[in-house]
């Protein structure tokens, strides 16, 4: 029996996000607001991985100064970012936890002013890098950490 393999071509300039937890690539797509950008995106779901068993991979074709990827550190520390230029990997970028996150997650505290104030951004501040704790800028409620994959 012939094993079916999927081939996705290389990109000339952009990012390859590797080691995404299997099944989470659509979350990343949403967090990076890729639906709003007019660029070529390939999403590979459940690819074989020696390290992880299964993983997702994303290839994003866009100018490399076009996108702020810091938020990925908040979502999943283990993602590897390869920066591609002229079809070659020119840099492997390390992820650092962003000091603040704007409109990526929402404050769930029903007593928080963000629940009623029109036009107010949902801001979370990194209050303890050691425990990777983020708190709402307004009510200081701790983000419960769901949808996150830590180190």
């Amino acid at each position, binding site marked *: 029996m012939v094993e079916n393999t999927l081939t996705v071509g290389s990109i000339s300039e952009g990012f390859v996000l590797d080691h995404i937890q299997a099944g989470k690539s659509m979350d990343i797509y949403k967090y990076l607001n890729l639906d709003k950008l007019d660029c070529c995106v390939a999403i590979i779901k459940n690819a074989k991985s020696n390290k992880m068993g299964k993983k997702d991979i994303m290839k994003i074709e866009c100018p490399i100064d076009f996108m702020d990827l810091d938020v990925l550190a908040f979502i999943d520390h283990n993602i590897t970012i390869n920066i591609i230029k002229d079809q070659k990997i020119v840099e492997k970028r390390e992820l650092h936890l962003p000091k603040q996150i704007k409109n990526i997650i929402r404050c769930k*505290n029903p*007593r*928080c*002013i*963000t*629940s*009623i*104030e*029109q*036009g*107010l951004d949902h801001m979370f501040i990194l209050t303890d890098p050691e425990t990777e704790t983020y708190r*709402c*800028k*307004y*009510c*200081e*409620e*701790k983000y419960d950490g769901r949808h996150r994959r830590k180190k």
Partner: protein
Amino acid sequence: MRHLMSPLDFTVEELDRLLDLAGDIEACPEKYAHACAGKKLATLFYEPSTRTRLSHEAAMLNLGGSILGFSSAESSSATKGESVADTIRMISCYADICAMRHPKEGSALVACEHSSIPVINAGDGGHQHPTQTLTDLLTIRSLKGRLDHMKIGLCGDLKFGRTVHSLIHALVRYPEIEFVLISPEELKLPSYIRRDVLDKNKIPYEEVVRLEDALPNLDLLYMTRVQKERFFNEEDYVRMKDFYILDSKKMELAGPDMLVLHPLPRVNEISVEVDKDPRAAYFKQVQYGVYVRMALILTLLEIEV
């Protein structure tokens, strides 16, 4: 321009200066009687309050200033759906400083982000109530002569009581502070405060259930009310509300210099008979609340006398 959002907005040195100023106001009130002449304080109270609103207004009037404002959301444009950001932009055109109480947590921070006048957080839901903490600190310093080297009993609702949480945050900055946390199991101090504030700052503390066990060794007893609005069912509230009642008999167990503080209003947790005890400081605390708010208004308006 500065605002007051949390009791920790001031460093220990800045706080010392503020409390010194409040002390001078207490000693020579006439010196400050016209310090804010021509200035206006707006009190924006989206929920009812007796002490906090009147205390801010009394403070401004004592300084020779004027006051304007509203005392419930129903009498403001909030009923028409106006945002906090829009309200404060408008108030900035009418007054020189404002004090705001709002039921939502973080509302004061939204106000200060859009304000062109100093904003005093006069309570934002269960989050912060910094002027109560300043009041507590001034009361303790004035009556005890210090804010360090003290064993402090915190009694009652330590789980939901924001005044207790703020006071702990403020006092751990002083040396040789020790706490006795007196509460029923259901209303214990939240673990994140024990871990992130007490343990992190290596503050000694013990947790006890019986008030009688703690009383003989305390320099200060801070009583709190069990708040009905924090409970989901009436039964739990009824069971908890009279868990602690400080009466003259229990006061006999305490030392001659132990002060009793309470943020008020009280319900049953301090018997009326204790009011006559010279160690009862909760009504003096109300007076100190006015002095400290006078000092705060002068500080935020950068008025020197």
